[in-house]
C-alpha cells in the first residue's frame, strides 16, 4: 500500500510528476486512458473558470463574499473521479470541484453565495451535505454517516475535507479518533493550502506535517503533493480501496497553495509576499498537468475556446441563480422544523401584518 511507502513520520511526500509535468515516479503513474487525463484537466479548467467568474460577479456587486478555490483543482478533480454516485461528500467550503463531480450545479453554488439557502439544497446530489462553515465540525458528521454505512453493511464511502487551520480544532481530533475506533469508511482530506486566512501553517502546529497526525488516531496517513493530479488520484484510489473493503478511515494531507485571497473580502498582501506566491505558482496544478499532456502529445484542445464554452455555461448558471424565485418570508420561517410550530406561525403573521401597515399616524 502506498501509505506504507510514504510514511508521514519520515515526512515523505507522494509525488508522481514534477512541476514541469515530467514523470518522476513512472512506477506510480496510474494507468488512466489519455481521454481520462484530458477529461480531468478539463474539469480542473472548468473549476478554475468558474472560480474566476465567481470572483468577477462578486466584484460586479452581483454576489456576496466568495472563497476562491484556485490552486485546489488537482485535489478536487482526483477526488471527483474516485467518488462514486452512492458515496457521500461532506465538504468544508473550498471543494467546489468535488461538489460539481457529485452533481451539485454552479447555479446552486452561486445561489448560496448570493445569500439564498436554496443553494444548499442540491437537487441532483442527495448525498452531498451543505457547505460547512464552523471549522472542523463537519468531520464528525462524516464519521456518523460512515457509521450508518457500516451499520447497514454497505460498501459506500465518505469523502470529507478540512483545511490546514482546521486541524487545530478539537473537532478534528475527536472525529478522527472516533473514525479510528469505529473503523468507518471515511477518507479525510486536509487541504493544506499553507494558510488559515492570514495564519501560516507553521503557527498552527509543530508536528512535522499534518498527515502524521493520523498516528494519534491509529489510522493510515499520507502526505501528497496536492498540486500533482496523478499523486492525488493514486492516493484516493488506494484510500478508497482501503475504506471500501472495511479497513476503515484514512487521512490524506494534500499539500497545495491557496493561490487566491481567503475570500473576496481578504487581501493577502497584508500577510504574504509576492515572491512566495510566485514560488508556489510554479507548482500550480494546471500548467503542470498541461505540460504532462503536452509532453505526451495528448492535449489537442484549444484552451481558449474551451474557456469560452465554460464561461458561457457558467454564466447561464449564474443567470439562473440570479433569476431564482425572490426570497420570501416563507423562506425565513418555513424550514425551521418539519412542521411549523404555532409560535413561528404567529411571528410570521404578525410580521405580515406589519408589512401591510402604511404608517397610520404619519
Amino acid at each position, binding site marked *: 500500500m502506498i501509505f506504507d511507502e510514504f510514511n508521514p513520520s519520515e515526512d515523505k511526500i507522494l509525488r508522481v510528476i514534477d512541476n514541469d509535468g515530467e514523470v518522476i515516479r513512472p512506477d506510480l503513474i496510474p494507468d488512466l486512458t489519455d481521454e481520462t487525463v484530458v477529461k480531468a484537466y478539463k474539469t480542473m479548467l472548468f473549476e478554475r473558470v468558474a472560480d474566476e467568474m465567481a470572483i468577477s460577479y462578486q466584484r460586479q456587486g452581483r454576489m456576496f463574499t466568495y472563497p476562491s478555490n484556485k490552486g485546489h483543482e488537482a485535489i478536487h478533480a482526483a477526488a471527483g473521479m474516485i467518488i462514486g454516485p452512492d458515496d457521500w461528500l461532506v465538504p468544508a467550503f473550498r471543494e467546489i470541484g468535488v461538489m460539481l463531480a457529485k452533481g451539485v450545479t454552479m447555479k446552486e453554488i452561486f445561489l448560496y453565495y448570493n445569500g439564498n439557502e436554496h443553494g444548499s439544497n442540491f437537487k441532483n446530489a442527495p448525498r452531498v451535505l451543505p457547505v460547512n462553515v*464552523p471549522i472542523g465540525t463537519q468531520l*464528525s458528521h462524516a464519521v456518523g*454517516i460512515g457509521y450508518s454505512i457500516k451499520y447497514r453493511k454497505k460498501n459506500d464511502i465518505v469523502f470529507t475535507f478540512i483545511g490546514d487551520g482546521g486541524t487545530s480544532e478539537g473537532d478534528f481530533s475527536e472525529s478522527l479518533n472516533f473514525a479510528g475506533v469505529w473503523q468507518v469508511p471515511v477518507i479525510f482530506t486536509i487541504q493544506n493550502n499553507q494558510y488559515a486566512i492570514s495564519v501560516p501553517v507553521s503557527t498552527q502546529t509543530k508536528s512535522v506535517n499534518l498527515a502524521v497526525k493520523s498516528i494519534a488516531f491509529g489510522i493510515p496517513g499520507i502526505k501528497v503533493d496536492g498540486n500533482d493530479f496523478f499523486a492525488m488520484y493514486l492516493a484516493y484510489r488506494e484510500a478508497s480501496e482501503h475504506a471500501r473493503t472495511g479497513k476503515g478511515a484514512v487521512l490524506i494531507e494534500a499539500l497545495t497553495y491557496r493561490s487566491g485571497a481567503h475570500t473576496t473580502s481578504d487581501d493577502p498582501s497584508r500577510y504574504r509576499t509576492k515572491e512566495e506566491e510566485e514560488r508556489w505558482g510554479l507548482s500550480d496544478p494546471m500548467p503542470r498537468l498541461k505540460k504532462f499532456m503536452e509532453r505526451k502529445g495528448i492535449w489537442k484542445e484549444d484552451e481558449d475556446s474551451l474557456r469560452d464554452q465554460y464561461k458561457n455555461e457558467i454564466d447561464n448558471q449564474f443567470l439562473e441563480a440570479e433569476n431564482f424565485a425572490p426570497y420570501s418570508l416563507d423562506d425565513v420561517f418555513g424550514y*425551521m422544523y418539519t412542521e411549523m410550530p404555532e409560535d413561528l406561525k404567529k411571528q410570521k403573521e404578525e410580521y405580515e401584518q406589519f408589512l401591510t401597515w402604511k404608517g397610520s399616524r404619519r
Partner: protein
Amino acid sequence: MVQAINNALDIKLSEDKNIVVYGEDVGVAGGVFRVTEGLQKKYGAERVFDSPLAESAIVGTGLGMALAGLRPVVEMQFDGFSYPAFNQIISNVSRMHNRSRGKFNVPMVIRFPYGGGINAIEHHSESPEALYAHIPGLKVVVPSTPHDAKGLLISAIESDDPVIFMEPKRIYRAIKQEVNDEKFTIPIGKAKILTEGTDVTVVAFGAMIRECQRAMAMAEEAGISVELIDLRTIYPIDKETIKNSIQKTGRMVVVAEANQSFSVGSELIAIANEEAFLYLEAPPKRVMGFDTIVPLAQGEKYYMITPERIFYEIEKTINY
C-alpha cells in the same frame, strides 16, 4: 423514572432498526444511572454502545447518522457535560434542516440528566433548559413523572426534528409510579394542567413539579386554589394553556431550578404579559435558582427550591 426511560428505549429499539443508542458508559455498564441497563445485551453492541469520551463528536456523529437515515439517541452523561457539544448543537444539529432547505431531516434525540439536589460535585447539577430553548431549530422536553418520561421520550424519538430531552435526575428513582408496559406517546409542545385551580397559576416542570405539589398542599390548607401546569415541553412552549390559565387566575408563579435571569421564567413572564396583560392582578413571579453557580452539596439547602419557599411566594402573590 429510570425504568420508564429504559422501557421507552427498549420499545423503540425493538420497533425500529434505525435506532441506535450511544454515549459514555451507556453500553456495557448501562449508564451511570442505569438508564440503558440491559439494552446492549438485548440489541447488540452495534446498536447500543460506549463511545469515546468526547461529547462534541458524540453529537456530531449522531447528526451524521441522522442525515444518513438512522435515528440516534445519544446521551450526555450530565447536564454540565452537554456543553462540549454546544457548538455542534447550536451550529449544526439545530440548523441542518433549515440550512439544507428541508433536504435533510435531523431525527435525533440528545438526552441527559439535569438538575440539582443530589449532593453532587460541580457541573452535575445544572439546569440549562434556557440555553437550549433559546436556540431556534430545537425542541426541548422535560418530563416530571415516569409515565411522562416514557410517553415523551417515545415522541421525541419519533420526532423528525432534533430534541433535547432533559431528565430530572433528582427524581430518577424517587417517584414510584406504575407505567403501562405498552407503547404510548405524549405530544411534544403541549403542557398539562395537573390540578385545576382559580387563584393562581403555578407553572413548573421536571423535578420541581413534586415540590410544587407539596407547596400546593400548604396552599390548600391556607385556602388558596392553585392551578398547577406542567410545561412538559419548554420549546415549542404551550402559550395557549398558559394564557387560558392566567386569564382565569390573574396570577402566575413560575418555579424552576435554573438561574433566574434570562431564563424560562423570564420567558413565561413575557408570555403572561403578551397573552394576558389585562388579566394580571399581581406581577408574575419567578421562584427560581439564584443567579449563582449551583453550590456544592452543603450549599444546596439554600439553592434548591423548597415547597415552603414556593408556598411563601404563592402567598405573597396572592396578597399582592
